[in-house]
């Protein structure tokens, strides 16, 4: 599918009339931020989800688009980063260290609405929330993931009870898991279940094993970390994690591959041939596109992910609805990561501005990814990749000879990892 085809709606007379009508309507609401830039907004964009993808899209729509009317709808008070949040479990950071507000986006003229989106009417181009309805010319859904607990007996009830935590969305779950670790007796067992890929943040579970083991090694050295991985091997940075576990956590971390979780009973993980009794059980459930994508009718890949046109990040099911981040059906070798969601947000912002202006969209987008993982409180390993758009196959492909892994864990990258967080939070949230 080429970009000209996707550009048609934005250049049609119908769309232009609608955009003009919107400009008049919006000006009656009183957009101080837009008025200061002069003229009516060139279009209304509603962004659902203020994580790495949605916040970045909102920021860049304002920065690059000037007089684009941007509303960001987010159900939480603040952004809490999943990257770096494993350090909270290790006791090396507090949750406040990975939390940022939306004031920076507000100052840039983004209308931030705290609300849960209850329905998306793609035909009527409206988003419904408890705080009212929001009409749009273009919609950006950056819903992250929701969990698939079906197929694992007892898991949903265990998560609902709060006794078993996923901690795969940073925030209260992160703090609660840290408390469980603090309450665990010396000699206790922390068990973590990893779902089959694809899931959010491929190296994240293995970094978590390191951070928990680092804490236990210092505070409760007779304890164990048991990693129950549904995958046939460590999903990301395998050699680097194996080395870190051997160098730092021998006798603490025990790794089991092909360990598919069948049932959760109390804090016992039941596998096909074995029960693993834990004091603290952390289950990372299998994941799919966030539920709001499903209700918008754009989950069209394996009944799980959102297929997108990579030139615009528009849903292949609903032109005019853009989807970002973990919720998308990933291009080959493209990780589900906050870094990548940020890159998606910029591709979408550039495309939306072009579409609203009736200009062609960028036909040669590039995105790249860097994931830093802490293997100790200071030593870090990375994986990086660069993805160029391939017009023939209409997808992003990694560039041969580019990207790669750290040669070895090191403290220089420990500093870079924290600086990465500072820079990307600033980039996405203008804080």
């Amino acid at each position, binding site marked *: 599918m080429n970009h000209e085809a996707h550009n048609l709606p934005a250049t049609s007379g119908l769309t232009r009339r609608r955009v003009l009508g919107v400009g008049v309507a919006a000006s009656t609401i009183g957009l101080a931020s837009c008025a200061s830039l002069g003229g009516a907004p060139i279009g209304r964009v509603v962004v659902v989800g203020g994580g790495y993808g949605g916040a970045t899209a909102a920021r860049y729509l304002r920065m690059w688009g000037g007089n684009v009317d941007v509303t960001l709808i987010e159900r939480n008070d603040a952004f809490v980063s999943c990257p770096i949040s494993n350090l909270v479990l290790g006791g090396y950071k507090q949750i406040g260290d990975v939390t940022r507000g939306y004031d920076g986006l507000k100052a840039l003229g983004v209308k931030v609405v705290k609300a849960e989106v209850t329905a998306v009417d793609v035909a009527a181009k409206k988003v419904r929330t408890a705080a009212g309805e929001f009409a749009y010319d273009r919609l950006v859904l950056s819903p992250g993931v929701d969990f698939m607990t079906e197929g694992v007996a007892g898991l949903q009830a265990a998560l609902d009870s709060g006794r078993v935590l996923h901690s795969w969305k940073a925030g209260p779950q992160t703090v609660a898991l840290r408390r469980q670790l603090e309450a665990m007796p010396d000699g206790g067992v922390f068990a973590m279940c990893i779902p089959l890929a694809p899931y959010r943040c491929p190296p994240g579970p293995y970094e978590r094993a390191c951070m928990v083991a680092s804490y236990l090694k210092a505070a409760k050295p007779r304890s164990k970390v048991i990693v129950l991985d549904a995958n046939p091997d460590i999903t990301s940075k395998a050699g680097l994690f194996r080395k870190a576990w051997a160098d730092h956590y021998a006798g603490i971390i025990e790794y089991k591959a092909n360990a598919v979780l069948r049932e959760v009973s109390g804090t016992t993980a039941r596998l096909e041939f074995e029960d693993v009794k834990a004091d603290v059980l952390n289950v990372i459930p299998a994941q799919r596109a966030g539920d709001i994508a499903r209700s918008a009718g754009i989950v069209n890949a394996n009944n799980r992910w959102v297929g997108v046109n990579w030139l615009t990040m528009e849903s292949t099911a609903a032109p005019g609805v853009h989807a970002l981040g973990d919720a998308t059906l990933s291009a080959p070798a493209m990780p589900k990561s906050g870094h990548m969601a940020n890159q998606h947000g910029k591709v979408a912002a550039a495309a939306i501005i072009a579409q609203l202006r009736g*200009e062609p969209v960028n036909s040669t987008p590039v995105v790249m990814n*860097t994931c830093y993982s802490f293997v100790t409180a200071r030593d870090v390993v990375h994986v990086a990749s660069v993805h160029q758009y391939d017009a023939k196959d209409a997808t992003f492909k990694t560039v041969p000879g580019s990207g790669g892994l750290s040669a070895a864990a090191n403290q220089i990258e420990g500093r870079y990892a924290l600086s990465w967080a500072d820079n990307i939070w600033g980039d996405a949230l203008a804080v």
Partner: protein
Amino acid sequence: MSPARRGTRRVLHAGPFGPVTRGARSLVLAAATLLGLAGQAAMAQDANLGRNLAATCANCHGTNGNARGDMKPLAGMPADKMLAMLADFRSGNQPATIMHQISKGYTEEQLKLVAAYFAAQKPAGK
């Protein structure tokens, strides 16, 4: 430094992808060619290509190259200096933790556009 001034820079470095030279001038030539071939629409697209490419760097190097912490600021860096650094990363002359891997993911033309974009950015707070 004006874009025209940058465009007159001479060869600074023989990188693995050829001499690092003509940065902004080749952008102007490429844009002019596109203008001739495909008209105004292509020109508009090309004008944002450097911006879009440079935005892929912002995750680490800050929005428009205004980096924080231990990351290298890129805003306002002369294009020839940046291209020489990138060439050294690609050739291995400059050891790096990660930039030797990332720099190889972009074409020479893309790196020139990135360098020209960052050179034109005013460092924040200066």
